[in-house]
């Protein structure tokens, strides 16, 4: 054995413990630090804006039947929830890496036995936890508003139908059923899950961009642009192809965009659930797997850029 590689038998601090290749504990520590960091940035204040939107929509005296009014409240609330979720995922993720660099926390972390993949995964998990908590709170606000309006509509409808004396209990039940169909249902939780999955892919894409971006502003702008393109390319491609008479160049361009940019429009299945369509759990599961695929690939690509980055 070479003398240079021999480990000294006695060391004043004892033998260094081998550092495991991957430690979920370290990832959890970085994730919890990220959650604290984001909470200290007062990010949850946007929930106030959301609550205001929901309360305003819930108190509109819309010129519609109770069922339609409930459907409108749901659509606006869940649309706003979705918007806040992906926007929050972009902004929060884009701010994290540059902020750590600015505060010099990054150097402290990376000088410890922390793998870069653990750092990136910890950051991503932290953002996802905060997005998840926000979505749960937003859903809670929504549920209170929808539940309150639903019970109000149901009692008003029962009272009106009973007092008119012209309707049988079956007809009243049928009418109430129509309102309840647009009210608070457990399936709405899956719609929130869909928004979470979309926000997770957006966060994964943003963390990848932020590994080589020069500033937070650049990351935010590019992420939003990519998100919009990812949302629109399926819709817009048929339009472009039609208006260009299926030109070869447009076809190629559409294919390149489709291959490089995630298809965020797929996650709009939450809209169908909000509108009262039946949930197909197998498809929701497959969407979860696709999301997992996106996260793994974006994380590996981020690592590829970040692994030998010098600070």
């Amino acid at each position, binding site marked *: 054995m070479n003398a240079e590689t021999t480990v000294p038998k006695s060391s004043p601090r004892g033998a260094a413990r081998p550092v495991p290749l991957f430690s979920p504990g370290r990832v959890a520590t970085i994730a919890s630090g990220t959650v604290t960091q984001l909470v200290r940035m007062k990010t949850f204040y946007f929930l106030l804006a959301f609550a205001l939107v929901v309360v305003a929509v819930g108190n509109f005296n819309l010129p519609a039947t109770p069922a339609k009014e409930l459907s409108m409240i749901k659509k606006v609330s869940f649309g706003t929830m979705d918007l806040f979720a992906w926007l929050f995922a972009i902004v929060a993720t884009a701010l994290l890496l540059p902020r750590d660099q600015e505060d010099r926390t990054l150097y402290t972390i990376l000088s410890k036995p922390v793998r870069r993949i653990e750092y990136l995964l910890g950051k991503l998990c932290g953002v996802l936890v905060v997005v998840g908590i926000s979505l749960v709170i937003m859903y809670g606000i929504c549920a209170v508003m929808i539940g309150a309006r639903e019970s109000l509509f149901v009692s008003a409808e029962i009272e009106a139908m009973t007092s008119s004396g012209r309707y049988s209990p079956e007809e009243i039940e049928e009418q109430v059923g129509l309102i309840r169909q647009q009210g608070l249902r457990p399936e709405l939780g899956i719609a929130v899950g869909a928004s979470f999955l979309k926000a997770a892919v957006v966060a994964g894409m943003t963390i990848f961009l932020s590994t080589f971006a020069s500033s937070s502003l650049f990351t935010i702008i590019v992420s939003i642009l990519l998100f919009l393109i990812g949302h629109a390319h399926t*819709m817009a491609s048929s339009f472009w192809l039609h208006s260009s008479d299926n030109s070869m160049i447009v076809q190629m361009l559409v294919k390149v965009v489709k291959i490089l940019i995630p298809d965020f429009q797929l996650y709009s299945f939450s809209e*169908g659930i909000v509108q009262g369509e039946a949930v197909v759990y197998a498809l929701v599961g497959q969407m979860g797997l696709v999301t997992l695929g996106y996260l793994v*690939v974006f994380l590996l690509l981020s690592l590829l850029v970040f692994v030998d980055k010098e600070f």
Partner: protein
Amino acid sequence: MKPFFQKVPRLVVVLVLLALFGLVRSPLEDGLRTRLVEANLLTPPPAQGAFEQMGQSALMGTLGGLRSLVATFLTLEAFEHFSTKSWDDLRQSYQIITALEPRDETHWVSVIWHLGINATANMEVEGRLPAFERERRFKEYAFQAIDFAERGIEQIPESSAIRIQLAEIYREKLKDDCAVARVYGDTIGLPDAPGYVRRFHGYFMARCPGREKEAYAYLMALYQEGEQQRLPTLIKEIQNLEEKLGIPGPRRIPDADPDRPQKTPRRPPNLLPGDILVPFSVQDLRKIRG
């Protein structure tokens, strides 16, 4: 130059990996999209025309994944057009709304009702237009409503609400009994179709020239189903047909039983339409004051 050359291969590797992942996921996502559309969870892209008609903000919102929000906003805008009787603007708004959310039955029913009932009613009383123009627009709005109904039925073939609204236009506005009979006939057997559509199909078939015999056989079959179908209107329609077709006396049906219990409770004699109570007693007076 050195860092540049160090960086380029890494970026190339990243792009290649991204493209490879794209190639793998693309067919999977296409399959998922098809199944999500089939399950009505995902709405297919809006029709060609919808993009051209959208305003800049609506277009951006739609492309940005805020399709539901844009549709809801446009529904509110459409109500504004209804309030100001701007029927062409209302139609324009609903063109986009129905393109954005083609699976939402309420949008189709609303636009058919607005154009087919409200706009045509407005044309019947609009004093600022000459009679010829009013008549022309009346027909135009009615046919636009029918066009919407046909597109709605294409999108939601199982919808009974759209067909019932369409039948109302043929019945109340165009007075086309044959078309009413056809639409009610199409509604029979659909999920959520009300029970009366079977009888209405027969009533309007009876009024459709040339279909009297068919209507008689159909209504008689309903009559034979039992007491629950022997409503005064059904009996009256059969008796009208018996007269028209010269059915011999022994084969004719008896008059409606006057003692047959009414489905709707009898209105108190002192309760006028609109629930206006005429006080007949001290309790009535207390009810009015309280």
